[in-house]
C-alpha cells in the first residue's frame, strides 16, 4: 500500500511545483468541460474515436450481462478523461493488429488498450504513460510446487507466449537453475489466454505467465481453483497513444489523467478491476521527435 502514496504524493508535488514555476494565470489541470474550445481548440466539434480490441480483460472487455457495452480499466479511464475535457467520444472495436495502422491513417484518434510503449512506437505516435506492466504467474490452487518467485521455478513447467518479456524471464531462470546444478525450467508456449488457462486446468503446466491484471482477475474469480504464484514488474510503460499532429488531444489526455490521479480516481478504477495499484505511475507525456 505504501507504493500507492508515492506517486500520489509525487503528483501533488508536481502540481505544486507547476503552480510555482508557471505564471499565476495558468491554473492546475482541472475538469472544465465547458471550456473545451478554449483549452483544446483542436478538439472542438470532434468526436474522438478510441480504438480498442475488447478481448483484453481487465483493460477493455464486454461485460457478461450486456455484450453491447465496453468496460475495463482502460475503457473507464478513457471515459473519465474525455468527460473531464468535455469532448465527445466513441469506442471503435477491432482486431489488435488493425489498431495502430488505423490511428496512423487517421481512421481512429487514439489507441487506448493496454498499449506498451517502446522507442519504435514512440517514433510514430505520442504516448501518455500512466501505468507499468506487471507479469503475473498463475498456478493451481495452493501453489503445489511452491513457486513463490521467479527464482523458484527450477524443475517447473512454465507456459508463456513466445517473443515477450515472459519468455525472457523463463530463459533467464532456466539458465540460472542449470548453472546452480538444478533441473532447468521447461517452457511451453500457447497462443491465447484461454489455451494457457487450459494448460493449468489439465496440469500440463505448473505456471502460466500473463499480464498481472488478468491473472489477478482470474484468481479472484476462481477461488479454490487458481492462485497467483508471483508477480514481477517488467518496467514496460503503458498508456494511450495519439498521432504526433494531434497535440491538443495529447494534452487533453495528459491533463485529464493528471486530474484523475490527483483525485485518486485512477486507483479506484484499478481496484474495481483487481489490478495491482503498484502498477500505476504518474502521468507523463512521451513525445520524442
Amino acid at each position, binding site marked *: 500500500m505504501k507504493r500507492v502514496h508515492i506517486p500520489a504524493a509525487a503528483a501533488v508535488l508536481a502540481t505544486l511545483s507547476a503552480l510555482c514555476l508557471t505564471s499565476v494565470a495558468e491554473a492546475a489541470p482541472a475538469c472544465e468541460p465547458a471550456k473545451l474550445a478554449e483549452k483544446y481548440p483542436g478538439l472542438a466539434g470532434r468526436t474522438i474515436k478510441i*480504438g480498442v480490441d*475488447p*478481448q*483484453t*480483460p*481487465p483493460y477493455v*472487455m*464486454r*461485460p*457478461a*450481462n*450486456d*455484450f*453491447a457495452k465496453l468496460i475495463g480499466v482502460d475503457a473507464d479511464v478513457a471515459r473519465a478523461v474525455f468527460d473531464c475535457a468535455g469532448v465527445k467520444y466513441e469506442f*471503435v*472495436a*477491432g*482486431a489488435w*493488429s*488493425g489498431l495502430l*495502422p*488505423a490511428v*496512423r*491513417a*487517421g*481512421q*481512429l484518434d487514439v489507441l487506448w488498450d493496454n498499449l506498451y510503449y517502446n522507442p519504435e512506437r514512440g517514433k510514430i505516435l505520442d504516448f501518455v504513460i500512466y501505468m507499468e506492466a506487471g507479469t503475473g504467474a498463475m498456478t493451481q490452487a495452493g501453489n503445489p510446487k511452491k513457486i513463490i518467485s521467479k527464482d523458484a521455478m527450477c524443475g517447473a513447467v512454465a507456459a508463456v507466449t513466445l517473443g515477450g518479456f515472459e519468455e525472457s524471464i523463463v530463459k533467464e531462470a532456466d539458465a540460472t537453475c542449470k548453472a546452480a546444478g538444478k533441473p532447468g525450467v521447461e517452457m511451453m508456449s500457447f497462443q491465447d*489466454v*484461454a489455451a494457457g*488457462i487450459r494448460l493449468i486446468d489439465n496440469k500440463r503446466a505448473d505456471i502460466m505467465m500473463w499480464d498481472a491484471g488478468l491473472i489477478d*482477475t482470474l484468481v*479472484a*474469480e*476462481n477461488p479454490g*481453483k487458481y492462485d497467483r504464484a508471483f508477480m514481477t514488474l517488467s518496467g514496460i510503460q503503458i498508456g494511450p497513444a495519439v498521432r504526433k499532429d494531434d497535440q491538443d488531444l495529447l494534452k487533453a489526455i495528459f491533463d485529464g489523467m493528471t486530474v484523475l490521479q490527483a483525485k485518486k480516481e485512477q486507483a479506484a478504477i484499478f481496484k474495481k*478491476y*483487481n489490478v495491482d495499484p503498484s502498477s500505476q505511475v504518474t502521468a507523463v507525456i512521451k513525445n520524442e521527435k
Partner: protein
Amino acid sequence: MSHRFRKGLVRLSVPLSAALLPAGAAVAQTDSAVPGSAVLTGLAELWGYATSGFLWNGALIAIEITALAMVLGLAFGLGLALMRLSGIAALRGASAFYIWVMRGTPLLLQLVFIYDALPLIGVRFDSFTTAVIGFALNEAAFCAEIIRGGILSVNKNQSVAASSLGMGHFLSLRRIVLPQAMRAILPGVGNDVINMLKMTSLASVIFVSELTYRSQQIVGQNFKFFTVFGATALIYLIITTLIAVMQERLERRFNYELPKDSDGGAFSRMLGFSHRAQSPAVPSAPTEVRAPASEADGREEMRDWLRTLVDADPLPADQPFVTCSNVQKAYGERTVLAGIDLTVKPGEVVAILGPSGSGKSTLLRTVNHLEAIDWGEILVGGGLVGYRRLPGGGLAPERNLAQARAKARIAMVFQHFNLFNHMTALENVMEAPVRVLGESRHEAEATGRRLLAAVGLGDHADHLPHRLSGGQQQRVAIARALAMKPKLMLFDEPTSALDPELVGEVLLVMRKLAETGMTMMVVTHEIRFAREVADRVIFMDEGRVIEDGPPSQVIDNPRNERTRRFLRLVENAPTETTSS
C-alpha cells in the same frame, strides 16, 4: 466480476436449461455438478449464446457484407471474364493482371490498404464500406475465373448459331451463353458465397464487428472457448444451410435437362420439403395461335407463307443473287479457298460436293460472313454482307456484323443442329425474330408454331432439344432459320450427323423448301438429293471449283478424274443406301 459473468450466462440460457434441467438444478455451478448434468449445462450455455442478439447482429453484418460484395463481385467478375475472353490483347492483359494481383495477395492486406492507406491520398471509407469494397474487388478476381470457366463450358457452336441468326455479342451472351454457363458457374459461386461469409471475420482488422470477432470478444472475457464458438458454429451453419438451399434452387432453375414437372431436388428431399417446379418460360399458346388441324394443312399454309417471302422482293431471275468473285482465304499457311468464282441465281438450289477439307463448308460460311475472306468479294442480293467498301476499292469489316447478317436475310442450318439447348423448340424458333427482328412475342409465337407444324413438329413445340431425335432437332433448326424470313438458306452438311434412318425426314423438308422457290446453297454428301433436288451441282477440291453444272453433267458424267473418284467413294458409303 465473477458474479456478473455468471448472471449473464444464466439469463441467456434460461429457455433451454429450463427444458433440459430438472427443476432446481444448478445451472452455473458446473464444477460441483455430476458429469451428465455438466453436459446439459454446457448445452444450455451454448444455446444461450446461439440465441444471443449480440452474436446474431454480428451475423447480420456478415450477411450484409457478403450479399453486397457478392453482387458487386459477380458484376465486376463478369466484366473481367469477358475481358479475358476478348480479342483485344490490352483488355486480356489488364484483366489477367488484375486477377493475378488480387488472387495472389492476402485479402487482409487489401482491406488494410483500402482502410488505412487510401486516406493518405484523401480517399476515406468507413469500415463497412471498406469491407464491401474490399471483398467485392477480391471476389471479382475469383468470380472472373469461375464465369470464364462457365462460358468456356458452353459449346462454341451455340454462339455461332446465335451469330448466324443475327444476334450480337452481348445478346448472344445474355440469352444463349450465360443461361447455359450458369450450370457450371453456380457451384463455384455457391462455394465462394459460403467462403466469403466466414471470411468476413478478417474485416475485424478494419473494425467491422461481425460474428467471429464478437465471439472472440466474449471468449476474451470468459474463456469459454467451446461453448461460445460452438454457438457461433451453429449460427454459421444455419446461414450456410440457407445459402446451400438457395444454390440448389438456382441450380435446378438453370438445369434445363431436369424434367420441369418433378418436385424437389435431392437436397429438398433430404430436408423433407419440396417446392413447386418452375412454370415453363413460354406460356402455352393462346387459343387463336394453335397449330393447324393437320400437318398437311400446315404444309400448304407454310408453302404459301414462304412463297410470299420469296416473292415479296423479287430479283430478276436472270440476275445472280449470290456472286462470289475470286474469293480467297487461308488459315495461316494453309490455303482453304484458292480463288472461288461462283454465282447463284434467285430460286436456284445449288449443291456443293467435295471431299472433306476441300473448303466447301468454309465457302458457305464466308457467304454470311461467319468467316472473313482474305481477298475477293461476295455480293448477296447486290450488297456486301458485313463489309463496307473503302475509297480505294478494298473492303473493311463492319463493326456490327450481326446486324449486317440479319439485314442480308441469310439463314443457316448446321451439321450439328446447334439448337439452343436450354430453350424449347418453340423458344428456339422465336428467339431471333423477337430479339433481332423486334417482332412481338405473340406474332413470333404464331409464326413459330406454324413453322414447326410445317416441318412436322407441331406436337413437339414445347420440348427441349435433348428430348428430340437428331432428325427432329434438324427440322427445328430449319424452322428456326426460316423464322428469320430468309432470302437465302445455307445448309452445311445438314444430314451428316444423323443416323441413316433419320436422314430422310430432313431431306423431305429441304425438298419441300426447294419447291417453294427458296434460294439454297447446300453442302452435302447426299448424292441422290443433289441429283434430284439441286438445279446445279458444284464439285470442289483443294479450295477450287473443279466442276460446275447441272446434276446430269456433274454427277452422272463427271469430266474430272477427282470428281469421279469422289463419287465412287460416296456412292459406296452406307448413307447412300437410305433415301428420302
